[in-house]
């Protein structure tokens, strides 16, 4: 990953990529006129973005604490975030203008993007390695042929 040393930049990149991928289902539900799914999806996506931001702040705070305190702090914050997820999903279930599954998918979009990014990065790394090996093999053959 390109910006692994810069958390701020990485955060922006994750959000950009997530919204880029999310534009496909958003456009699809807009065109098909399924506004419940659209609203649910956007609701989940916005909450997931805000929780990512919250998590970065929490991690930065935790790294200034002692080991035991950081452990307890992050654990407590996780349960608070879990509570937020619970409220969001219950609201999506109860409100007839929001689609529950679309909200759940919206919440998962950030994780999906991170996983896809990591997989593509791994695949790209593997492909580059193979290409270099192939180039080296080709150069060796040319050298042998020249001799």
């Amino acid at each position: 990953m390109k910006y692994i040393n810069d958390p701020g930049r990485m955060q922006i990149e994750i959000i950009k990529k997530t919204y880029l991928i999310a534009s496909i289902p958003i456009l699809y539900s807009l065109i098909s006129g399924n506004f419940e799914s659209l609203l649910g999806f956007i609701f989940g996506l916005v909450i997931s973005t805000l929780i990512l931001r919250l998590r970065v702040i929490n991690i930065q705070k935790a790294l200034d604490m002692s080991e035991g305190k950081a452990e307890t702090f992050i654990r407590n914050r996780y349960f608070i975030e879990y509570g937020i997820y619970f409220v969001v999903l219950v609201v999506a279930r109860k409100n007839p203008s929001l689609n529950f599954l679309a909200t759940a998918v919206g919440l998962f979009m950030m994780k999906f993007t991170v996983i896809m990014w990591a997989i593509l990065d791994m695949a790209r790394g593997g492909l580059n390695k193979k290409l270099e090996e192939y180039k080296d093999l080709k150069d060796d053959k040319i050298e042998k042929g020249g001799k």
Partner: protein
Amino acid sequence: MVEFSPQVIDTIIRAAALLGAGFAMIAGIGPGIGQGYAAGKAVESVARDPEARGNIITTMLLGQAVAESTGIYSLVIAIVLIFTI
């Protein structure tokens, strides 16, 4: 053979669904413990090598984002079980 009335069967189904939702919520505890443990180790790593702070924050952020998904899966299943029946 014992025959149950529809009301009793309905109650059993509701009870089983709520019990299932409760069991599903157990899966939400694991990521919390794991994230806390990862945070502790991250603090240890930053203390050992303060220059790698940015790298550690990013790795931890990505790890936590992915680790949390199992908790949300269980939450979604529990809410479906609670509200559908």
